[in-house]
């Protein structure tokens, strides 16, 4: 009798513990989110002062989105090419970032290497994340602009007045710079997360592996990586979400999209509509971004979790 009572009250505690989160989410995020969905089915027009009008438009905003650009852009639909830009720039930044961070995390946590001055290194690598993205973009723009220091450093290549490379007149150099900034800003963050993950792994497993005569590489592949999977999933998913939200850096670095909008991201596109108060189309872009994010996250989650499963069972 008493025991049963206890169980009931514990369930109640579960609700109590999660209540603040859900109430706040409901008010400040879910309701605005629903309104975004609602907007996407309306034709919204607002010239600022004269007041706004909203008219039900069905799926018009969506169909518009999938024709925008196609009539004059060799059939290329704007939103699809911006989605492509976003993914390309994310991958260009995230892959080296994950590699660097993994190496760093292993170096830091390795008992064999016994790195001195760890505190210093760990502190320093996270520093770039403290600088706001806008400042980063400004700095890189100043560094790489035509006639700037990087350009000047290549003065010895050919005629100084001609033929130098303008980083901001080429789609791929612009994308690379965006990726490099994202990389520098975020690799410290990722390293800390992975380190926390590695240190959370039961040390006895490493010991056991060592006693069994496993090489460092084997330990890394057979022990560290599988046990690190939950944190890796977290890292990749948050990075992906961050990548899909990419805005400040390309917006400022490439002045709203760069050469032929080759660095324009989905959120920059969304921002264009929001800036011009086209909330209907903006809502439709939002819904599409939402769907894309969901699908990609599911794919990442699924693929990474399948590798994870056997281990979980073993637990």
């Amino acid at each position, binding site marked *: 009798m008493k025991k049963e009572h206890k169980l009931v009250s514990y369930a109640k505690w579960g609700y109590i513990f999660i209540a603040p989160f859900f109430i706040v989410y409901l008010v400040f995020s879910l309701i605005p989110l629903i*309104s975004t969905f609602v907007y996407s089915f309306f034709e919204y027009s607002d010239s600022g002062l004269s007041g706004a009008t909203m008219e039900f438009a069905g799926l018009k905003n969506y169909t518009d989105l999938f024709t*925008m650009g196609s009539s004059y852009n060799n059939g290329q639909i704007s939103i699809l090419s911006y989605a492509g830009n976003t993914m390309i720039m994310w991958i260009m930044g995230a892959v080296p970032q994950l590699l660097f961070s993994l190496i760093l995390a292993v170096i830091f946590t390795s008992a064999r290497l016994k790195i001195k001055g760890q505190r210093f290194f760990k502190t320093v690598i996270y520093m770039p994340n403290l600088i706001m993205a806008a400042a980063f973009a400004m700095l890189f723009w100043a560094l790489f602009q035509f*006639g*700037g220091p990087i350009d000047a450093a290549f003065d010895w290549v050919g005629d100084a007045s001609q033929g130098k490379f*303008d980083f901001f*007149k080429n789609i791929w150099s612009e994308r690379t710079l965006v990726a490099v900034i994202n990389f520098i800003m975020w690799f410290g963050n990722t390293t800390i997360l992975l380190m926390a993950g590695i240190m959370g792994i039961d040390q006895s497993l490493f010991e056991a592996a060592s006693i069994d005569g496993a090489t460092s590489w084997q330990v890394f592949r057979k022990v560290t990586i599988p046990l690190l999977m939950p944190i890796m999933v977290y890292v990749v998913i948050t990075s992906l979400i961050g990548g899909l939200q990419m805005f400040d850096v390309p917006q400022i670095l490439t002045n709203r999209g760069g*050469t*032929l909008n080759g660095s324009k991201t989905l959120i920059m*596109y969304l921002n264009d509509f929001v800036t*011009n108060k086209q909330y209907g189309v903006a809502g439709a872009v939002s819904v599409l971004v939402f769907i894309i994010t969901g699908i990609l996250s599911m794919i990442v989650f699924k693929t990474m979790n399948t590798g994870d499963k056997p281990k979980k069972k073993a637990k």
Partner: protein
Amino acid sequence: MKKRILAGVLSAATVLTLTTGLTGCKDNGAGHIDPVFTDDGKKLRIACWNWEFAEYFDAFYASKLPEGITVEWAQFPNEGKNYQDNLDRLLKANIDAPADEKIDIFLAEADYIKKYVNSDYSLDVKSLGVTDTTNAYKYVLDAATTDSGNVLKGVSFQACPGAVIIRKSIAKDVLGTDDPNELQSKLDSWDKFNAVAADAKAKGYMMTPSVLETYRAFANNATTSYLNDNKFAPTEAFNNWFAQSKEFVSKGYTQVCDLWDPPKDNQMLADGKAMCFFGPSWYYNFSMGTAQKNTNGDWCVIQGPQAYFWGGTWLLAANGTDNSSLVKQIMNDFMNDTELMEKLVKGTGIKEWKDGKPTSADHYNPCFANNKAIIKKYVEDASYGNSFLGGQNDLAVMTSVADNIVWKKELHTIYDQTFNETLPKTMLDFFSGNASEEAAWNKFYNELATVDSKITH
């Protein structure tokens, strides 16, 4: 049951997030809002996007304010349309706003002043008592006059006539003279200008420091609008600029960069090669810092091929103001007060920037004041000269440009910013050789679609 309540709450709340902007107008039925102004406020609120006017105001005017009046600046950085968005919101709520939250004066730029002038959220300045506009330049008044009914809605303390700013040593080498009058006679039409460009190139110089340099001079003199029945088409003026730019780029008469890019700034250094810069007095007084530091005195201004303007800040009275007589006083003084306007013209030339506000009235920026009488006085004053321009009396040149500027109401749209800034910038992709002309246009059309989906081309 619970579910239904939840659904009800959710949908009600969702409506709450949708309704802003749809309501809130003090509508008297015909979509018209009556002007309201009172005179019992204690706080003067001025909406602005940067601190330029605040700087002048604090330096020359704050001490003259009546006892008990405090000034508050509602400042919003103008990124995207952030300033306009916030301003729209404040103006719409202004009549019903509590006394100390009412906006009294708001500032507007040339690119979007039309929107506010033609709305009921700005007040007829004559109804406030600002009646003496005889000394103001005509285009400055026209820009702040309603499309229908000729109602003046705003005034300005400045005019921004644009000149051609010439590097004298290069002009001497190319044209054999550095006398402004002779230079003007050699550059008073685009044909002559284009011909001189070839001479400059032959001597190893560039005619202009950036391909966008001449854009405003052309665009300001358009005779047709970019938009007709929501259909976009490039104007003849644009096509003329485009043709000139294409030629200039292909022949190396200019370089491909934006107006504020460092490669252009580098042309102001001692070893700079560009001869003609385009800009109003604020441009050579503040924005040519590199030239002031490195090539001071080696410059002069001429009227150039066509009169044009660039920039400008207008003061408009907000409907609902509770400081109407003070607003009137400020508007009037910043146009007609002799002492104040002289201070604006003279300036100390020393720029000291202090996080948005001046801390000392000793330093302030000179400004081409919107008062013909004061300008005339200095045009005739033999002792007046601009040291950056080697002692030239620039006001004589600028005032005649200002007289020749025509503000063509019917050509301005609420999309001016898109056409004045985005359009030429987009063409940089083409001029730099990284995109075909067609691709550059497509990029612009994409931009147009995000500005307003109703615009076709």
